[in-house]
């Protein structure tokens, strides 16, 4: 039997307001809240951060770079949600005993948004670009996260469930679903090709690196194509290129696959759009001025 309780109308109204506020929250606030939750849960349950200093350094560098470059280039103070996500992604995904890689990677990530642009769109996911540059050029000093978070089932289940709900809310669940299904299919194919246990081939997707990759990188609205069909195709192609890289024993295959496929897809979309517009003689001035605010 439950205990009878009295609920006052004011309390009901307050609860309703809080709930409503949560579910009607502006979309751009959701990913930062989600990634912060993952960081805090991961840290306080498993101590995933080697030091707060490194994570805060990455976040701080990212935000400062965004403020300076945003103000300089657009004349306005930029919204900091995406810079925060880039910083926190760098802080979690990059691993180095030194401090300088965190600053450098975060600043490269943010600066890439303002430099590597075509038709006013930046073409690389900033944190993916920054981390790949560090892995290409500073391999003796940095690695990427691959083994933290306790390898435990429940932590994985919580992050996957929460992440799926949030990504659904952001209308990007299909990207994650296509990528995960493609990854699993390719994993089985790889297992058949190389003769390794299938468990070892699917092992990476059960780790934290992939959780961040799937929820925060391949779904980045600013560096993915606009149509649902195109997004699904790109997710599949990322998994396919990753498969090739994995056959070549590339440890950071997913990051490199997105690094290769992401910009090509965006460029192709830009080219197709411009061709379509030219064909129908539409007014080019209607092209959406896209502010540099991707992650």
């Amino acid at each position, binding site marked *: 039997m439950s205990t009878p309780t009295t609920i006052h109308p004011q309390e009901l109204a307050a609860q309703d307001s809080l709930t409503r506020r949560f579910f009607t929250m502006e979309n751009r606030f959701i990913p930062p809240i989600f990634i912060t939750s993952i960081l805090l849960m991961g840290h306080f349950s*498993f*101590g995933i951060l*080697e*030091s707060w200093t490194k994570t805060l350094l990455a976040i701080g560098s990212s935000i400062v770079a965004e403020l300076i*470059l945003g103000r*300089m*280039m657009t004349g306005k103070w930029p919204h900091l949600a995406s810079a925060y996500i880039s910083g926190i992604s760098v802080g979690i995904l990059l*691993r*180095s*005993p*030194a401090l300088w*890689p965190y600053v*450098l990677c975060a*600043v*490269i990530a943010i*600066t*890439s948004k*303002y*430099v590597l642009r075509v038709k006013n769109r930046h073409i690389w996911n900033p944190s993916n670009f920054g981390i790949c*540059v*560090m*892995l290409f*050029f*500073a*391999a*003796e*000093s*940095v*690695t990427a996260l*691959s*083994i*933290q978070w*306790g*390898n*435990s*089932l429940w932590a*994985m289940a919580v992050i996957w469930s929460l992440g799926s709900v949030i990504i659904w809310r952001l209308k990007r669940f299909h990207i994650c679903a296509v990528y995960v299904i493609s990854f699993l299919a390719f994993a089985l194919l790889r297992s058949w090709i*190389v003769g*390794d*246990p299938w*468990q*070892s*081939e*699917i*092992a*990476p997707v*059960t*780790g*934290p*690196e992939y959780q961040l990759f799937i929820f925060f990188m391949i779904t980045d609205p600013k560096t993915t194509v606009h149509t649902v069909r195109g997004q699904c195709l790109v997710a599949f192609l990322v998994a396919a290129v990753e498969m090739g890289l994995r056959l070549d*024993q*590339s*440890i950071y295959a997913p990051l490199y696959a997105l690094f290769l496929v992401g910009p090509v897809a965006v460029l192709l979309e830009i080219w197709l759009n411009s061709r379509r517009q030219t064909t129908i003689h539409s007014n080019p001035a209607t092209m959406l001025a896209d502010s540099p605010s991707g992650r």
Partner: protein
Amino acid sequence: MTRSTKLRIVVAVFFAGLLATPIVLKKRSAQKQTHQTPFDAKASLAQHGFYLQEVSHDAGIDFVHQAPILDAKLAHIMPQVASMGASVSVVDFDRDGWPDLYVTDSAIGSKNRLYRNMHDGTFKDVAEEMGVANVNQAGTGVSMGAVWGDYDNDGYEDLFLIKWGRPELFHNENGHGFRRVSDEASLPAWINANTAVWFDYDGDGLLDLFVGGYYPENVDLWHLANTRMMPDSFEYAKNGGRKYLFHNLGHGRFEEVSAKMGIDSRRWSLASGAADLSGTGHPDLFIANDYGVSEFYRNDGKRFHEVGESAGVGFAPKSGMNVAFGDVFNQAKLSIYVSNISEGGVLIQGNNLWVPKEDTSGNQIKYENLARDLGVELGGWSFGAQFGDLNNDGNLDLYLTNGYVSLDRKRSYWYDFAKVAGGNSSIIGDAKDWPAMEGRSLSGYQQKHLWLNDGAGKFVDVAQMAGVTDTEDGRSVAMADLWNNGALDVIVANQRGRLLLYKNTVASENHWIGFDLDGTNSNRSAIGAQVTVKWNGQEQMQQISGGGGFASENDRRLHFGLGRSAAIDEVLIHWPSGKIQSLKKVAVDQILKVKEPS
């Protein structure tokens, strides 16, 4: 040109600079690497005050370690799971004043060696006649290491044999042989351990014994019930072997008291060391764990308290493989060196040099990792390390060996290793899920490190120039003045490799002093005694240990370099019994025998 265009150019140039930064840093680092001078004895002697020569064959030692061959279910990853067992410990088992060597082998049916020092630069294996050779028989497991301590205070060092299998205690029969006393000591039937340390945790004058399990004790690696015997996480594993604390009851009897004394852990222990780190007069216990954080068991005199996290050493999980203590700043405070894994582009954990923070001790002791600042952070797949003043300049240097599995030079197992290590516990924990190694290397053929302490807060790697040129899969490092000539020599045990004996030649202008302590109220081995030498405005503290590094034990005698100074102001000895002894007007360039005043 518009302002906007100018801005874009400025930002583009800035961006190019950012991209170039890691490339420039990489080039500078590569230049530094190539500038390491190759071995040159004369130059090393002139520049660094010493050089090392590998003389094992000339010294009569031609030992090659054999790795265990475990259950066939592990055949596909055998080099990885059967990757330990090579060890060396230093002991003067016959009390002739010359350090001898005990070396473990790890194949079923292989024999351990006890190399008696013949006083002329050669060694003779007497293990068979002394009764400590045939200890790797089928059904009893194989050796992983050895630690020596005089548990019955009869003046002769006894042997505890660390095994994946049946642990063994051998009583030293006045230097004429050894008698197996494992049953009388009530040792467990089976422990899969890689580390043990003798220490007198309760100060009763009898040496107690800590043993740290690696694989769980219910796993017989030669007869596996199933393949779920791997760690369930690469960084948070708690499914390893249990820990044992054997309280010495006297008369050769021991009682297992770990739970009662507050030591309750199933982390995968690989190395341990005991020392009075918190300055309370009681020896604390430091454990380096593979697949997880290190543990710091503070001893309050009544029981142990695990304070790793609050002390700052148990926060970031790594792959701990070594515990060595050293007063690296000559401040009479012990720092702790823990080795881990660093492989460029794959996994850079970095080794830890835990230095006690200023004005912290006791309950409040805190450490900070200064490995990077001091230059001893990156050492490859690091294993055993030891501190010792190799050039007698008055500062403790650091020798580190490394390398995990050296097989095919061109093919690496790292991709497959990383793939599984990041996976869920149900995958990583089952050996059958691991891809076959197929002869591939895993951090193999690595260059060793010999970091000279410049006394000003930096360590400089001089390994190549000083003569350390091997690239074997190093495991255990021990130091001892094998020639009794005032120079610390280095002995290295390699997995599936040779036992290396690096003889040290030191520039004659530097002075030194050695101490050979004999406990009376304290344990006879004087394990736990701290000796502080004060000279020329400096002071350095060293401690006698009953095991340390990785599966090793240094010479019981302590060795201090004094630089050019030929005079010692004072020697302070803190005996484990609590007694403090002061010695003045001590002559240099000698090994001083000191008996604990009764």
